[in-house]
């Protein structure tokens, strides 16, 4: 289906809806749509108006992270770090092609997918059903991270990057477990306010 030219990008609007707490959702999405339609689009044209809209959506991410509490912020930071390092590991394996590189590159991609899923599930409020899969992801990260850490410690040749990545995997897994079982007071507060005002 083609998107009408006078509307902000639908995908960005959906992300914004997911980022916002129930109380603010309709109001903020409405305000930004009004500004987009009445001011940005006529003044700046479609492309620059879309860029403006995406920039505004991104400005709600820090607020969302704060709402999840300190554990959520740490998890978010570690998820991005682990995602970047596992992608880097996969690329290096593919370039260097040492023996058994296919398996290691596939594993790195698998870890990257878990990290990306963690970021998306938390950011887009996909709910308890999706979060259940993160428990499995956390167990996989801790298992493989721990195995790599022990294997590296016992090996004749100590690899610094294996040490860092195995630590990151274990830390990410542990944080995922902690945040999954951790109450998010900010979110509950928002939900209470939504119940009072609607």
């Amino acid at each position: 289906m083609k998107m009408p030219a006078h509307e902000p990008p639908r995908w960005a609007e959906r992300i914004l809806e997911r980022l916002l707490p129930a109380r603010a959702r309709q109001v903020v999405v409405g305000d930004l749509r009004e500004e987009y339609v009445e001011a940005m689009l006529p003044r700046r044209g479609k492309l620059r108006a879309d860029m403006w809209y995406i920039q505004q959506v991104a400005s709600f991410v820090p607020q969302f992270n704060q709402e999840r509490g300190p554990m959520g912020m740490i998890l978010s930071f570690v998820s991005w770090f682990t995602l970047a390092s596992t992608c880097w590991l996969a690329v290096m394996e593919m370039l260097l092609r040492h023996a058994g590189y296919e398996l290691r590159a596939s594993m790195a991609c698998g870890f990257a997918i878990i990290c990306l899923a963690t970021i998306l599930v938390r950011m887009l409020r996909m709910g308890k059903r999706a979060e259940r899969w993160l428990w499995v992801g956390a167990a996989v990260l801790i298992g493989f991270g721990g195995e790599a850490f022990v294997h590296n410690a016992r090996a004749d040749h100590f690899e610094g990057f294996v040490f860092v990545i195995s630590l990151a995997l274990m830390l990410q897994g542990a944080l995922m477990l902690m945040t999954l079982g951790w109450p998010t007071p900010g979110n509950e507060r928002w939900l209470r306010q939504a119940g009072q005002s609607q």
Partner: protein
Amino acid sequence: MAELLGTFEQSVLLSIFGLRGEAYGRAILNHVQKLLQRDVSAGAVYATLERLEARGLVSSRLAEGSPARGGRARRYYTVAGEGERALSETQRALTSIWKDVQLPIQEGL
């Protein structure tokens, strides 16, 4: 004495005052940009509005939305008595701090 307001908080409160009954999110965002003479992100404005409301410095009410916003509700803000007091105290404190200062700042102040 109550905690002094930051520059951004002052701008948001003064915008609500300046908009006289027409202070909803989009209008506040534009007014703050005009006051500070720079681009301001919507996320920062809404986070500040939420914080000010939680502290009892502003109050809000929902109103019907226009077709341009897909019928979505508007939230109008007004400065509460506590907000006016906080603004006055901040203005007093800033005036007192700057009272004896002459720019460029002289040594030995």
